[in-house]
Structure formats: C-alpha cells, structure tokens
C-alpha cells in the first residue's frame, strides 16, 4: 500500500525509505514539484527539470533555501534556475524541510545517458572531484559534497557550465557554491566538462 507523505510520516520515511521501493504520493503542496520534475521526480529534459529522486534531504534543503534567498536562480543567464526561484520563494521554512524529505523519499529508474564524452579523460579529472563527491559519486556529507551519481548528465553539464561561467556559485552567501565555482579551475572547456560527466554517469551507485 502506498502512502501519502505528511510532515510526521516524512520523518519516519527518511529512516525507512532505504528498504521501501514504493512510490511516494506527494502532499498537495508538493504536487507542484512533480509537474516539472516528473512522476517521482524522475526528471524531464524537455522542461529542463532534472531528476532529483532520492536526493539527500540536507542538500535539497540547502538548495531550496539558496533559491528562496536568491543566492541561486536569479542570474540573468540561468533560465531554468529562474523558473525554480519563485517555487522555492513560495515555501515556508517548514515546507522546505518537508519538501526535502519528500524528495529524498522518491525513487525512479536511473536516467539514460545523453552526453558524449571521453570517459578515460573524465576519470583523470574526476580524481580531484572525488575528494568531495566520493570516488563513486556517492557524495560526502561531512565535506558538503552532494552525490552526483544518478543525476541527469545534461543537468550536470549545465550546472558545471553555470559554475564555470559565474552563473552559479557567485553569491557571497552561497558558501558551498563558491567552493564549487573555485574548483572549476580544472574544467575550463566544454569538452572537459563533457568528459567528466560521461565518467560520472558511468558510475553505478
């Protein structure tokens, strides 16, 4: 039997979800998330909305806050970020926590790869990335590096370009974003970005 996520069950679910594979039914206020991000937040490339199924709630919460505060999703060139910005702005602090719990509880099939790159070259670059994001792209909570495996490759490419081009990670309050922007030194051109993303999507969580 599937369950509807409420504030209380959300907290329960976080701890039990690892074993459960049942689809989560979003609370009414989070149906909005599924409109662009798809059923179980599986992602929708046509709308530029990435797969966020099962994403760590701490990271989702941080990003929602970042969108809400305008640290992210306000740059003129960040078209999709600007679409997300009002969605996060409409959430209360409490709802941000609930939304993050909902996101973490969702499950969907791993995305198909769309980016063409040189995996071997990407692996070399990834050595640096793995310090914070884990050798298997599993993320590192202590170092605030979110998991990368399981994300849409086209989305990773776009975000890396955004970090590189000063579209993301430039706001003084966005401490972790700034760290990432600084790390982009090693990935200056689009080919390098495609290579490293091609390697990341080959990692199996």
């Amino acid at each position: 039997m599937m369950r509807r996520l409420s504030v209380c069950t959300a907290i329960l679910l976080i701890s039990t979800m690892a074993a459960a594979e049942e689809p989560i039914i979003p609370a009414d206020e989070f149906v909005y998330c599924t409109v662009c991000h798809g059923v179980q937040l599986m992602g929708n490339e046509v709308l530029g909305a990435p797969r966020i199924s099962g994403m760590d709630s701490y990271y989702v919460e941080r990003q929602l806050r970042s969108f809400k505060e305008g640290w992210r999703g306000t740059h003129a060139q960040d078209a999709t970020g600007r679409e997300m910005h009002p969605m996060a702005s409409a959430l209360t602090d409490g709802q941000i926590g609930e939304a993050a719990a909902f996101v973490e509880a969702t499950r969907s099939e791993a995305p198909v790869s769309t980016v063409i790159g040189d995996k071997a070259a990407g692996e070399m670059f990834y050595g640096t990335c793995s310090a914070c994001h884990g050798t298997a792209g599993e993320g590192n909570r202590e170092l605030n590096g979110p998991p990368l495996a399981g994300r849409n490759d086209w989305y990773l490419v776009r975000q890396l370009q955004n970090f590189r081009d000063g579209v993301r990670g430039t706001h003084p309050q966005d401490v972790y974003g700034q760290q990432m922007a600084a790390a982009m030194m090693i990935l200056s051109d689009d080919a390098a970005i495609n290579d490293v993303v091609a390697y990341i999507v080959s990692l199996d969580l």
Partner: protein
Amino acid sequence: MNQNLTRRQLLAMVGAAGGATAIYQTGMAMGVMADTGAVARLDLKNVGASKKNVVVLGAGLSGLAVAYELERAGYDVSIIEASHRVGGRSLTLRSGDIVDEMGNRQVCEFDDHPEMFFNAGPARIPGHHRRVLNYCKELKVPLIIKGNFARNAWMQDNDHFDGKPVRVGHYVADARGFLSELLYKAIDLNRFDQPLSAEDRERLLQFATTFGDLRPGGSYAGSSRAGYDEGGFLRPAVSREPKSFEALLNSNFWRRMFDGSERPDWGDPLMEVDGGMDGIVKAFVREIASPIRTNAQVQSINLTSSGVDVVYNYKGAPQKISADYCFNCIPTHFMPGIPNNLPKDYREGLAALIPGNFMKIGLQMKKRFWEEEGIFGGATNTTQPINAIWYPSHGIHGDKGVVLGAYVLFDRVKEWDRLSPKERIRLAGECGDRIHEGYSGYIESGVSIPWGRMNHMMGCGTQWTDDVRERYFKLLQQPAGGRHFMIGDQISYHSSWQEGAFASAENALLELDQRVRAESSQTGMG
C-alpha cells in the same frame, strides 16, 4: 539589364498570385475528409453490448469532446484531470477564481457581476472553425460577435509619431494611400519596355485610385477613410491630415497590422461565447455523464496486450484503470516525466515538441473610458511590452468592463514571467498610460495568466519545427499500439486554437471508429 517591370512580368505576377490561391484551395480539398468548410457530424458506430471502455487523460477541450462522443456511442468512459478544474486552457476567470500559477497563486478579484469576466485562454472563434461552431450549435452555446480589428482603436509606438497613439483607421487609410500613389506614378510613367495597352493602363490607374482613395492625378492627400478631425454631421467634414509616408514606413506597425487583420483566424467578424468562452466547457460537462476526476495526476501509462493501463493518484491513494483505449491530451512536454512504455519513436516525437508560451492580463476597469474614445470592441496594438489591449465587445455602456491589458507571445513572455503578479499589473498600467490618458488610474484589479508558468500546463501553443513535423506528425496522429491516442490542439496544425483541439479529437475518433468497425465485421458482430 532593364530594371523596369515588363508588362509580361506584371501579368505573370498577377497570374502567379491567382495560381497560388487556386493551389491552396485545391490542396485543402484533397484531404480524405473535409478539414475546412462544412464538417460533417461524427457518426461513430455504437459499441452497445461489447462495453468497450476508454480512459481520457486530461479534461481539456479535446478530452471533453472525446468523452462526449464516445459516451453517445455507448463506450464506458472515465476522465482523469490533474488540475483542480476542468477545461484545460479554456479558462474564463471570474470573481473568486484561482489562478494556479507556479509559485504565484492568485485569486481573481473582479466584481461578482455577469459582465466581469476574462477569457484567459481562447477568446476568439472565426467563422471557418466549423467544429467549434458545430458544437456550439449542437450544445446550444450562445455566441456573440467579437470585434477584433477596430478602425477606432489605436496603434502606438514609443519611437514614432512622438509616441502618441494613431487611430487604426487613420494608419490604414494613409498606408493604402501612399502605396497606391506609388503604384499610380509607376503606371503613369509607363516606362515598361513593352508599354501597357491603353486599356490595361486605364484599369490599373482606376484600381490604384480606388484602393488608396487618390485625388485626380494620382496623389494621396488624405482620405475620409482616415476618419474626421472635425465635422461631418452639422458642419463639413475635415478629414485627418495624412501622416508622413516616411514616418509611416519607419513605424513598423505595418508588420503586425496587415498580418493581424487579414488572416482568416483573425479576420472580422469573429465570435465569442456569450458570458465567457468556458460556456463550451460547461456545456460538455453538462452533457457528459461519465465521471470526471479532478486533482487526479497520472503516474504511469502502459500499453498491454489488450489495452492500456493507467495509474493515477487520487485522494492520497494510487488508482489503476485498465481500459481498452486511452485518449491522452496531457501536454506533450509532460510525457517525458511520466513513466510509460509507448514505442520509442513515439516517445521521441513527443519529446521533440517544444512548449510555446503565451501570457494574457485581464484588467477590471472602473469606467469604460474607451467607449468615450469611440472604441467598442476590437484591439489596440503597441510596440510596448503589453503588445495589445483588447476592449470587450459585451457589456457596452455598462459601468465597468474587463479589458485584455496584455497579450504577449513566446520569448517576450520571459520578462513578464519573472515579475510578481502585482508588478505585472503595474507594468501593464504604465504601458496603457501611453495609449489612454489616465489608464492605470482606472484599474481596479487584475489577473495575469502566463501559460508557461501555469500549474499542469507549463506552456501554450506547441511548436513544431518543419523537421519535427515531417518526422513525427503523422506518427503522433496514429494510435500507439493501436490503443493510445495522443490528442489536443498540440497534435494539429492549429495549436492554441479550440478548432485544433476538436480537429485532433475528431481525427482520433474516426481512427478508433475504423478499427472498431473492422473488428466487429471480423467477429461478425454489429
């Protein structure tokens, strides 16, 4: 090389124009069924005892038409709708209605009054949209004439004519006058290498004179067609002074004016539903007995050996329907976010369609000030971000009225999307102030409907590139696995028109009917 137009070339041009029209008409007549002109009422085979069941995804116009038709033909129908309301983009806003914009939920604060409504989606019905009209006639939906092109409305451009509005009729009369004068002079000079015959020449001069209202000798010096500056009833009429041809040419109005008023879809007289365009939606809902579930969001669509399985969430629990056939008018751009096992090329086709974007603003005005300017219905065009102002054709001489305060298309919507609903109303008011004195002061309340940001819509006016049309249109018109029909204005050559939705529904129903008839003749039933 001789730069002059030869007589032969001139006549060839006229011939070519006539030929193109002829080819167009022949082309339209070549379809298997009538696509334009009289459209016959659907006559679907009644499935009676075989009790075929159908699930309709989306309660937009195409979904409602399918449900209505199939119910009449004896099918068991269920309708699943993701949003809180029925009608899709056929949305008429009235007092207290919710505008479910993503991140910007608004409530319509118009007066609770039968004339205070705003058609936020479709608003115009041309006389050749026969399917819409057939349904209106059959379902007794009352129609009234809607003005669209109005000579007394305005053209306004911040960069030309000192930013002051010019009457549409004035602009049109001057444009035709200047063009005709040029033609007249060219004929008069008669510098063709083969001179025109005296008869041809005389006819062309007469044509130019009549087309542009020229003075004897072929000059344009203003016309009563431009409207009067003064008099005309008790004193002699004084026509408006012609604008300068150069200013007219530079103004760029002609780009939109000659296109906007002369296309069949926009050519007067248009119609609208008396009391709001959603009268069509309400009529369908009244006639349809099948259950329509709103707030029911589809979670998966799967073709099976004998039909289609659809899972959707409803009242906090997943529900499953196994149907013989599925008619789907969910916006195509949502399909990549819904798990399904539709054929690969079919899914690729759906993902290749680009959601368009329209935005409309409706403003309740505390006074019908436009009527004091002689404007009764029709549209003003401007190069400002609002693009247009439409004046209501209903409720004439009432105390108040709802105008369309902005109609913005595609890329220009982005700058509006980013504004809050309040900021949009303010900007619309500022733009209007440059056209009508005191405009913003008349605004009592307003609603903005950016279709690219509306919940469960995220777009309007599906865009097909030529390449995508070539590769996928026919495929998407066919049922996937013989069971799943994609429908809606999105699967037509008339995206964002009600007629497109009905045409697509009709096409899918005929396809289904053919299959059902073939099946029953095979099994000897019928």
